[in-house]
C-alpha cells in the first residue's frame, strides 16, 4: 500500500474510515446487472416468443435465419456479440462493474487490499477495452435495424395503427439511440480529437457536433440505465404477448 504511517490498518480489503454506508452504492449495479445478464442470456437461448404481429424483440433484431436453414440454434446468438460488446466495453459500465463486481475499488477511499500485480487496463486482457469505438460502429448498424423495426411496429394488417407495443418499441429505440449518441468514443471521433476547431476544415460543424454529443454525454450513465431497462422490458413485453400471457392493447 501507499507509504502512510498513519493508517496502516487500512490495507485490508473493505477497510475504511468512512462512516457512511458506502456499499449501498454498488448494490443496485450488482443486482440489476446480474438480473439483466441472466434474463438476457436465457432469452437469447430460448429462441421463441420473439416476434408477434408487427413487433420484433430487440434481442433478435436483425433477425437472421429464423427458419433454421443453416443455423440450428436461437437466431439471437448470432447477433448478441454486437450490443453485448458495446456495453461491456462502455466507459460507464466499466466503471460500474469494476466497482461492483471486481471491487477495484469497491468504493472511493475503501481499501481493495494490496495487489502488487494490479495492471488496470494497461495490459492483457483489459487492454482490449480499447476496442470500444469499433463496437460503436457495429451498434450504429444495429440501430438502423431497430429504427426500422420501430417503424414497422406501427404497421398492422389493416394499415397504420398504434399498439402499446408500438409505443414501447419506439421509446426503446429512442433510449438506445441516445445512449449510443452519448458515447465517449463518439464524442472523441466527432470532434474531441480536434485541438483547434478554428484551424481545421469543417471546424464549425465539428465543434457543434462535439458540443451536442458532450451535452448528451454528461448524462451517459442515465442513458445507459434507461436503455438497459427499456431493452429488457421491450423484450419482456413482446415475450408476454407472443406467449399469450398478455394481450396487446390497441390505442389506435
Amino acid at each position, binding site marked *: 500500500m501507499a507509504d502512510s504511517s498513519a493508517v496502516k490498518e487500512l490495507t485490508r480489503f473493505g477497510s475504511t474510515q468512512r462512516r457512511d454506508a458506502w456499499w449501498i452504492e454498488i448494490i443496485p449495479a450488482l443486482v440489476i446487472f446480474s438480473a439483466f445478464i441472466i434474463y438476457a442470456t436465457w432469452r437469447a437461448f430460448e429462441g421463441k416468443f420473439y416476434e408477434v404481429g408487427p413487433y420484433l424483440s430487440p434481442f433478435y433484431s436483425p433477425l437472421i435465419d429464423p427458419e433454421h436453414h443453416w443455423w440450428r440454434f436461437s437466431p439471437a446468438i448470432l447477433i448478441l456479440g454486437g450490443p453485448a460488446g458495446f456495453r461491456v466495453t462502455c466507459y460507464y459500465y466499466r466503471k460500474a462493474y469494476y466497482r461492483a463486481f471486481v471491487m477495484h475499488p469497491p468504493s472511493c*477511499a475503501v481499501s481493495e487490499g494490496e495487489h502488487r500485480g494490479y495492471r488496470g487496463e494497461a495490459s492483457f486482457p483489459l487492454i482490449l477495452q480499447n476496442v470500444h469505438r469499433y463496437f460503436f460502429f457495429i451498434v450504429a448498424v444495429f440501430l438502423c435495424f431497430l429504427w426500422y423495426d420501430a417503424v414497422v411496429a406501427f404497421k398492422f394488417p389493416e394499415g397504420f395503427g398504434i399498439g402499446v407495443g408500438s409505443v414501447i418499441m419506439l421509446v426503446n429505440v429512442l433510449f438506445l439511440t441516445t445512449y449510443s449518441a452519448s458515447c465517449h468514443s463518439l464524442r472523441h471521433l466527432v470532434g474531441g*480529437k480536434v485541438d483547434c476547431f478554428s484551424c481545421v476544415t469543417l471546424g464549425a460543424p465539428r465543434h457543434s457536433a462535439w458540443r451536442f454529443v458532450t451535452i448528451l454525454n454528461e448524462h451517459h450513465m442515465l442513458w445507459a440505465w434507461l436503455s438497459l431497462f427499456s431493452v429488457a422490458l421491450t423484450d419482456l413485453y413482446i415475450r408476454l404477448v407472443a406467449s399469450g400471457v398478455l394481450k396487446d392493447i390497441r390505442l389506435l
Partner: protein
Amino acid sequence: MAEVTLRVFRGDRDGGKAVDYQVPLTEGMVVLDAIHSIQAHQAPDLAVRWNCKAAKCGSCSAEVNGRPSLMCKTRMDALPHDQPITVYPMKSFPVIKDLATDVSWNYRVNKKIPPFQPRPGVEWKMDQRDVDRVQEFRKCIECFLCQDVCHVLRDHDKKQQFGGPRFFVRSAGLEMHPLDGASRTRMLKEELGIGFCNITKCCTEVCPEEIHITDNAIIPLKERVVDEFYDPVAMIVRKIFGAK
C-alpha cells in the same frame, strides 16, 4: 456552548496514534477552524498545512471521517457529531508530522510532462470556443486529493509507473490547447501509465474544483492514446493523409 470531539492523527513517518480533542462548536465553523482551535488551546505543536482558508490554495488536504477533503471547505455542521470526527493525513503520501504529508513525489511527476510548446509559426490568437474546453483544467489548485483517493496510488502504490489524475488534468490542458504543437500521448501511455486508470471516477468525486477529471480529461486522453497506439484504422488513415 456545544462541544464536539475530534480524533486527530498525531505522529510522524515512523508511526503515531489518534488523539481525541474536545472543541467548542461555533457558528459556520469548518474542520480547519477546529484544528486551529486545538492548536491555539490544547496542542501548539500540532502540524497542519494551510494558507488561504478559502478552498483556493490546495494546502489543507486531509481525510475527514475517511473522506479526502479540504479541511477549510468541510463544515462542522455537515458532519455527524454522535461519534468523534476523524481527521487523518492523506493516506497515499508519507507523513511528515501529524496532518502534514510529503507530496514532493507529485512535483517529480510534474517535471515529466513536456510544457506548452507553440506550433511553429502559430498566430497568437485564440478563438473562444477553442479555449473554453481547456479552461476547466486550469482550475486545478493542486490539492492532490485526487491523487490521494486514486486506488492505483492509494492501494497499489504504483508511483513508479503511474502519474495520477492530477497530471492527466495537466496533460489534458496542454494536449488540447489550440496553440500547442507537442504530442504527449506516448508519455501518457508509457511514463504516466494512463492504462492503469480504470476510470472508476473517485478522483472526480473528491475534486474540490469540480473538474470532470475522468470524463473530460482522462477518457479523452485515453481515446487519443487509442488513436495513436491501438486503432489500426486510425493508424492507417494517419499514414496516408498525415492527419492528426
